[in-house]
């Protein structure tokens, strides 16, 4: 749950009275853009990504124009720009126009929680506006501070003094930067970054810090962000339809974290426990359709819903339904297995049978009753299966599931389909 860019960033900054550059959204008229160029001399044109995408500048995805014609051609270039990072691509949906802010000094500033200091920590440099990873360590400083007292002026003053910041920027930054703590801490953020903050001469020559780019991340376990009344679709791009459907079930009882790993995968593995999830997803590689952690002792209905949604999206393409977890300490196996088995039966009744091989590895309270419930269902559905207790190594069970998938890929699926009376 991230936000980048000034279109929404400026609104958030206005809540705490932090000055921002002027910004227009994709709907801006030619007159508006022209007016902005006249006021500011030039404008920056930036693609608008839902959710959080950083390092646009480095990817050549920021345009600058000092006349309307250039501004419009940059708009055309960037309107549907694609940004790639590793396996993840993001597509722009519009652009923003941001008035240029004349300044001598550019400042980088961020607040996040540092696992080194185990405290909220600011990072600041007066040599901002560039990739700060490339700066000399002496020009940049990280300063942890006390969460209960918050970010105070003296923290900023000390930090700026330590890096030898020019004296004309110190006072305005000491005055304005503490306001950002309010935004960060009281609206459920985990990261807030302004880069650059341009130090614009104001009345009487006194510099005013103006935020010219904005990035923030929200903690999805913290409802405080809802106070900001942000439109829901702002975060929609962060999740696939499947992930979004599952996310709606998020409650504090029972984990429900999912990612789509490979939408062409053939092993559907509801996993239980963060460790199992990590280990199994790693071992399954691209065979895995999803990565999931459904542990945390979910109640029946939640587990049933999770399974129902997972099956609705993925069962048709699945070769191996692989239910896997360690020996649970608290999650009730009977409840979770019965819920999954019932959802599987409902799917077969409503959507028709699917050629499947079921592999289960689990331990925990009410294990045998849970396995018994799954067994009865699988027997009724006529699906082949093996269930392993916790005395079989999880990694071996994963290998078994992979072997089952391999067999299904090489003619096994057709054999199972025939057994189920399905046309091959």
């Amino acid at each position, binding site marked *: 749950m991230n936000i980048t860019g000034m279109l929404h960033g400026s609104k958030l900054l206005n809540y705490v009275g932090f000055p921002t550059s002027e910004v227009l959204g994709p709907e801006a008229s030619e007159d508006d853009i022209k007016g902005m160029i006249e006021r500011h001399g030039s404008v920056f044109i930036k693609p608008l990504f839902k959710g959080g995408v950083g390092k646009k500048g480095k990817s050549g995805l920021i345009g600058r124009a000092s006349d309307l014609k250039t501004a419009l051609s940059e708009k055309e270039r960037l309107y549907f720009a694609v940004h790639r990072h590793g396996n993840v691509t993001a597509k722009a949906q519009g652009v923003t126009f941001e008035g240029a802010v004349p300044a001598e000094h550019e400042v980088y500033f961020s607040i996040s929680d540092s696992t080194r200091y185990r405290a909220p920590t600011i990072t600041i440099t007066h040599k901002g506006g560039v990739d700060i990873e490339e700066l000399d360590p002496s020009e940049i400083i990280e300063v942890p501070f006390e969460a209960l007292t918050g970010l105070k002026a003296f923290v900023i003053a000390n930090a700026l003094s330590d890096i030898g910041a020019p004296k004309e920027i110190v006072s305005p930054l000491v005055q304005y930067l503490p306001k950002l703590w309010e935004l960060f801490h009281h609206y459920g953020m985990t990261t807030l970054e302004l880069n650059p903050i341009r130090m614009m001469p104001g009345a009487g020559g006194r510099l005013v810090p103006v935020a010219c780019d904005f990035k923030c991340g929200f903690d999805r376990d913290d409802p405080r962000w809802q106070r900001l009344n942000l439109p829901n679709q702002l975060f929609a791009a962060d999740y696939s339809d499947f992930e979004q459907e599952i996310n709606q079930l998020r409650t504090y009882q029972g984990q429900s974290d999912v990612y789509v790993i490979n939408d062409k995968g053939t092993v559907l593995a509801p996993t239980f426990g*963060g460790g199992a999830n990590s280990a199994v997803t790693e071992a399954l590689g691209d065979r895995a359709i999803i990565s999931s952690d459904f542990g945390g002792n979910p109640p029946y209905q939640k587990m049933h819903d999770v399974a129902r949604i997972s099956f609705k999206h993925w069962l048709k393409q699945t070769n191996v339904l692989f239910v896997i977890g360690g020996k649970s*300490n608290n999650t009730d196996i009977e409840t979770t297995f019965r819920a999954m088995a019932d959802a599987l039966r*409902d799917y077969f009744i409503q959507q028709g049978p699917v050629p499947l091989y079921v592999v289960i590895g689990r331990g925990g309270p009410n294990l045998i009753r849970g396995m018994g419930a799954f067994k009865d269902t699988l027997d009724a559905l006529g699906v082949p299966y093996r269930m392993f207790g916790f005395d079989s190594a999880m990694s071996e069970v994963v290998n078994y599931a992979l072997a089952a998938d391999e067999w299904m890929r090489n003619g096994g699926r057709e054999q199972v389909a025939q057994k189920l009376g399905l046309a091959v």
Partner: protein
Amino acid sequence: MYQQGVGDFKYFVGIHTLEQIATREDRICVLNILGGESSAVSPVSHAFSGGNIVFGTSPGKKGQVLKTAAGDVPVYNNVREGLADGHRFNTGVVYLPPSGVRDGVAELIRVNPALKKVVIVTEKVAVHDAREIRAMAQQAGIDIFGANCLGVADAWNRVRIGGALGGDAPDESLLRGSIAVYSNSGNFTTTIAQYLATEGWGTTTSVSSGKDVYIHFALPEFAYALSNDRRSKAAVVYVEPGGYYEHNLNFTKPVVACVVGRWKAKLTRAVGHAGALGGDGDDAAAKEQWFQEAFGVDEIFTPDNPVVSARGAVVTNIAHIPLALTRVMALSNQQPDFAPKGDLSLKPWFGDSRGLSLPAELNLPVQEAIAPYSKQIAALDQQTGRHFPRRAMKDASGVSQMDPKTQITRLHNQSILDSSTRPLESNLCQALTGEHNGENDNALVNVAIAGNMNLHGDIMIQAADAAREAGNAPNVVLSAALAMLGPNRIDSARKGVDTLVELFVRSGLEDARDEDFDVSVIAISDTQAALFIAEETDPRAEAMLAAIDARGARSVFIRFLKGLERPLSSNAVLAAISATIAWGPLMRKRISSITARSLPWYLKIYASLIGASADGSLHRSDSYCGVPNDELLNRWTVGEMAYLSLMGEQADDASLYAFQVLTGLLTSNGPGSISAQGCKGAVSSDGPETPERVQINKAMIGFMSHTGFSHGGAGYEGIIFLADRFKHTTLTDAGEANHGLDLIAMADAYAEEYSRAKEEAKEAGTGRIGVIAGINHPVFKDKPVNHDPRETFISELFSGRDDYNVFHDFYKKLVTALFQSGATRNVFCVNIDGVISAMLLKMLWPRFRAGTLDEQALEAAAFTIFLYGRMIGCAAEIDDHINRGKNMDTRTPASKLEVVS
């Protein structure tokens, strides 16, 4: 600001050695001790640890106790009360919901100066709160474990604090030895311990650290305390990507580190610089590197490539941990703690290859499970039907669920919209068996109902008639009949089902309709046979048997009982029909044997309710409502018979369809509806823990006594509203689309009338005028286009059949007219009551038009059809509550009651 604790940490750390993490001397206070998770976990922890929980808190529950094998743990409203009562503790355990965790920790710190440690089990605590918890604990000098962890445990001290390390059998995993365990994953904390045992390694202290952004007791502190622990010779650590907790560690003892999660790097998006500084450099690959540098190894350990040093090894698969540890320890001549226990090879406990030609690597034979699981598996094989764990079922249901957004209820995971397209006889059974009938089962149910619906000469109809005579509403009339249907009248049928199940359960019978099944192999004793045999020929039984033949229905049990070659009782036939219907779901462990045993009672109740809704004069020795008994038995469906009882005439196709849709729609509104609450209360008060004593007829009366003119009669108000609008028109056939009426003009006229009345009421200051029956369900208001999904469904269902309903059409035009005239601010929706009224009035219109049906009869019809539908849903709730509930579990605690002056 922090207190200087042990070591030279730049923050407070109080734990000097791992021995201090979970000791026998620690005394615990558990916040939210009676919560769902704690009440399951804390009793095991308490007993395992020699009774270390001194008290727990749960607001409003002071005076209650948490029962444990090591004695009761007292519960207080808050921490202060417990302390005031003389209890002392040094460790807090937090099971509060996420939003309450920070304040809970604050309170522990504020009121208890003796506090040293806090374990937070709760997951999904906001980072904001974790930040503040960190700061508070640092100021006060307190060690925090978690959040989002499973707590800490010590195999030497036999103590576990906080979560459920070791599950409900901590002794199985917490084996005393020489290895300390630290894990980001709660589950892996004990999974690793159990894996270690396969190489003969036991454990000292186990720490489940949690995996939130803030890990308060993290690896640097663990490494420090490990150095100082005289018992631990080495450690195993399991970590995942994220955070710099593993950077620059200083281990003084050998460590096997397991790093898992390289795949997570693929999922990350490009982030800003703050993310790059704080996040990008701490992925799994980086962490592997950090550990490799710390141990002086340059590769990952695998069994094929066993790279270790005396300082440690790095693995990426937890199954490799035990071997890696043994190899590391061998370099310093350290031997395992005990002989290896178990092995980690593949051992299927259950399996079925379905006769497929599987390769050898897949076709693994099922092996006997380890004790005690092998015994449980053997017991499972002997178990008939499903067993439900018992719990308080107040306001809870295992069979029905209403979606609060759409108001659509699901019964056994099937939407009532689907039920409305199924035959009534199938819905009657699906409520209890969770599965819809096939044709054979439908035929059997039709016979069961037809055979018990005619109450000629039965005291049930006399009671019903007397109640009717006294002016009671249909629910009271039918209740009077049911009061006569007590357990004695059905006893032999219930025992009959039990006996049939007992006789056939090990016979290999899979399909109760199997014509080829050899019943001669089933040996029945005289005592058992006596349950089924009538002293003299029972005409009802004979007629039912003949009807089963006439319909070509099959039943192994009927065939078997006929083989006794003695006259059978009607209860015997009912038992055989019930056993046939229940057999599949019972053998598939979908239903319990309690449900199977109760099925004849439900069937008899269904039949009696349908029968008693027709006046006694219509019950004759040879006919019912003018239809010969044989014809009903041999040919009619339950839907047709119920329609006959209600309307006194045979339904045409369209009416029958509409009637079945109506009863389907009315089946259930979830466990919160008044009717469901009534029947659940009736079960609860009889005590479901002794299921044989629950009076199912009384439970049905409980449902009916909790219906009335408001709950059940809503359709009636709509009928009267519609009748008022149409009685002065020329309408004769409500199903004729070319009715010649200007519905828009009628709707406009009424909207105007309504607006005027509203305005007048406002001017006169008499307040709001009443709502219009059948529109504006509150849940769907404030939307520009407003459709009740149930209304949409019905609308589409009937338009697909070319089945027009002028009243429904009028309703739809009315909501638009009300909006356009300004009478309502939004377009209201036609709600389900409106739909029901429209359908019912369409059915009744010819007789209403002809003047043969007065308003009271209209109301009785609307009410009765509601009862027909709802009896299905309530049967499901009753059966569910009997199976899962506890005695008197629908009580409301005194603390939740309100006094109103």
